[in-house]
């Protein structure tokens, strides 16, 4: 549906996008995941038509949409600060895009009512938007951007200003509502948990370019770059020139990691080993933090290398040694 090719953009001397290419299929939710300042929001603004100074091509349904101004693109954009019209009621906010499409008044009223119901705000139609809670504002913003049946929905950190507990719950609900409407969507976030929950596919962005473009599962299990691994909270990233890593992984299994600049030892592939299974690595437990259901532990190998891993139970006391096994598929070569 949407294709962007080689988009570059700069704010003065500050380059914000370097040749970004992406695709969004019909009905798909693509998640742009990356730290703040990586260019995600700028990319959204370019797609929406709010940013007009850039190089590259934006196509929708095969047509070049670059000359089309924002108000004729029929794309929905949900702003990070929601950008609700402070002078309009909840219902009038939602109706705004419908009125621009010159819909009949009765029809608008029906649509607004059904949208209010869809986002669970049935009773609040006449309320002043200033009186809403954060979660309610988020729903109004969503309903408003969905109302005119956009050809593409873009959401810029839609849960960014909400607290963590609310976020998990709302992320799922967002996915449900978007999927139900069948619209293609681009979802911008810096929170990987949110991305896993919402996305069909994830594009990991850093410093103005896309570093990886995969399914959520693939992104987590096989991060493609050192940046992606670290951004996803996977700490066991080592330079392949480090002699200690050679000592740790030397000889065993697939040696393809040696040709990459760095390597990730995915914590999900590190297990406690019982006698007899090989190869075994002897490590000392440095410390462990209970996370509710599991422990976040750090251990050191004899070579002095420190690894993080999750343990269901503590096999030994802090300072004592025990044995672990690293699965072959947990050794992931990383691009720089």
């Amino acid at each position, binding site marked *: 549906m949407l294709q962007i090719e080689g988009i570059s953009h700069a704010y003065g001397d500050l380059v914000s996008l370097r040749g970004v290419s992406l695709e969004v299929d019909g009905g798909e939710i693509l998640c742009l995941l990356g730290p703040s300042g990586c260019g995600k929001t700028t990319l959204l603004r370019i797609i929406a038509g709010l940013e007009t100074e850039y190089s590259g091509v934006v196509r929708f349904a095969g047509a070049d949409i670059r000359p089309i101004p924002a108000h004729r693109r029929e794309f929905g954009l949900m702003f990070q600060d929601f950008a609700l*019209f402070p002078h309009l009621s909840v219902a009038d906010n939602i109706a*705004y895009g419908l009125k621009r499409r010159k819909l009949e008044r009765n029809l608008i009223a029906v649509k607004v009512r059904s949208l209010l119901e869809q986002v669970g705000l049935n009773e609040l139609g006449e309320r002043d938007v200033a009186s809403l809670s954060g979660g309610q504002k988020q729903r109004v913003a969503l309903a408003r*951007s969905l109302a005119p049946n956009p050809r593409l929905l873009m959401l810029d950190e839609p849960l960014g200003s909400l607290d963590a507990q609310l976020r998990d719950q709302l992320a799922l609900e967002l996915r449900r509502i978007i999927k139900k409407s069948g619209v293609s969507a681009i979802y911008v976030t810096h929170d990987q948990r949110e991305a896993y929950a919402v996305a069909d596919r994830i594009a990991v962005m850093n410093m103005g370019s896309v570093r990886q473009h995969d399914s959520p599962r693939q992104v987590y299990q096989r991060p493609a770059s050192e940046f992606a691994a670290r951004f996803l909270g996977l700490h066991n990233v080592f330079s392949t020139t480090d002699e200690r890593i050679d000592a740790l992984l030397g000889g065993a299994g697939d040696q393809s990691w040696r040709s990459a600049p760095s390597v990730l030892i995915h914590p999900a592939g590190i297990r406690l080993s019982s006698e007899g299974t090989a190869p075994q690595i002897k490590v000392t437990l440095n410390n462990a933090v209970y996370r509710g259901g599991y422990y976040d532990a750090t251990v050191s190998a004899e070579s002095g290398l420190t690894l993080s891993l999750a343990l269901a139970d503590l096999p030994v006391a802090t300072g004592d040694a025990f044995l672990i096994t690293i699965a072959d598929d947990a050794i992931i070569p990383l691009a720089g």
Partner: protein
Amino acid sequence: MIRRARYIWRTVYLAPVAFLAVFYVYPLLSLFDISLRPAGLLDLSGFVRLLSTDFYLRTLLFTVYQAALSTAFTLLLALPCAFVFARYRFRGKSLILSLATLPFVLPTVVVALAFASLLGVNGLLNDIAAALFSLDYEPIQLERTLAMIIIVHVFYNFAVALRIMTGYWSALGFSVEEAARCLGADEWALWRDIRLPLIRPALLSAGVLVFIFSFTSFGVILILGGIRFATLEVQIYYQAVNMFNLPLAAALSLVQILSMLAMMIVYTSTQKKIHLALASAAVITKVVRSWRERLAVGSCVGLISILLFAPLLALIARSIFVAGQLDLGNYASLAEKSRGSLLFIAPLDSVFNSLRFAGMAMLAALILGLIASYMIDGRGRLSRLSDALFMLPLATSAVTLGFGFIIALDEPPLNLRASWLIIPISHTLVALPFVIRSVLPSLRAIPPSLRQAAQTLGAKPFETVLTIDLPLLGRGIAVGATFAFTVSMGEFGASLFVAQRESVTIPVVIYRLIGDPGLASYRQSLAMSVVLMLVCACGFFVIERLRVAGVGEF
């Protein structure tokens, strides 16, 4: 200990209240007393006169009419400019915004003369047009027309409206507008549905303020309009000074005060709306790229430059060129004191008078204004009451104040009428509301937790004020000082009444020189106006620099 501290505070609070009571309430009451009971008996002849003909009603209507016209034109010009200033980023923007504020601090006499130099029958434009097209008549006939008055009012108030709206628009951000664009709003729908409704509180607030300023316009109309265009304010002066009809003048003053009070109430309510917090993203200004954007920015900058610089440059040109030749004789003559002149002192001496009085008024207004701000910032009925109380001088015409001073402060122990002290005192009174309005927002912005933190760290109450409040108030204080200083430098209405002999200030000197028939005096008044303009501009820029440095520092 705590009780003693509170006791001390109460005593300190008394200072501004006492000042107001003695130098505002008392003169005003005296004024009404002498007007309503001239012979010790109630005599409402002033009001009877007021209502006996429709002349004064027409004066009131004209005052409203010209103020409404001035407001409409000011807003019409300032609105698009405010949009451009809030929306776009371009070189020199902050400088222009700062310069555009200059007229606001320029005294009315200077501005009136500047426009006469530009647009008058013998003004620069007429000379240029006559030379260019070899005309033997003057194509621009604006002297003593309503149009001239309106133009000057726009000049005056443009920056006020621009600043209020630009500030509000910037704080509003543009994400709401972009949301509307994504929902299908074209440029026209954006103005109709989003921009105008959103800017409305600022538009209203700026409008009311401009209306108030135009409603009370005195110097501009006295010099450029004449009695035919008399506003209420000019009519008060005229009835008191020329006709000596004190009961009528007082009756008119009362009408003026009541109208102003009504407008102040409207203004305060618009202020509350404007302070409603608006959630917004960081301000994203756009770089100017397309030719349409260039045209928009270019026209705004051009408009402001012409509006601002043309009259001031005309004034300077008229003051240094005599019959087409550069001649600084007008300036040289300012230092001469001659008994044959209209003045008691050499014109240049009035510069020292003005600087001295402005310094004193600034200091006094700052001290009293700070205390008053604390009083207003407090809780309870007293604070609400004092808020309204300290705004009263703003709602009273300077002419009325000066008039009241002369009547009330002429007996021991307050025999100040012949003393120069009466001038800084009257200026302090006029400047006080400006200081309070500048300091109060900063004061209210200080979270109470800061003071509590200081107290838990062992700071005594006055140490808290000294180490926490004052540094944080730096910006507000500097802005208040700007206003106090420039308001005092340019104050005309009250000074015209109370300034005597040696103590005349620059604006009074200029006015006297204009009134003196003869070309020499007129040229002297031009030179004097340039001097006052420069003094005001310097004071303004010095404090503007201070303000920026202060903000950087704290």
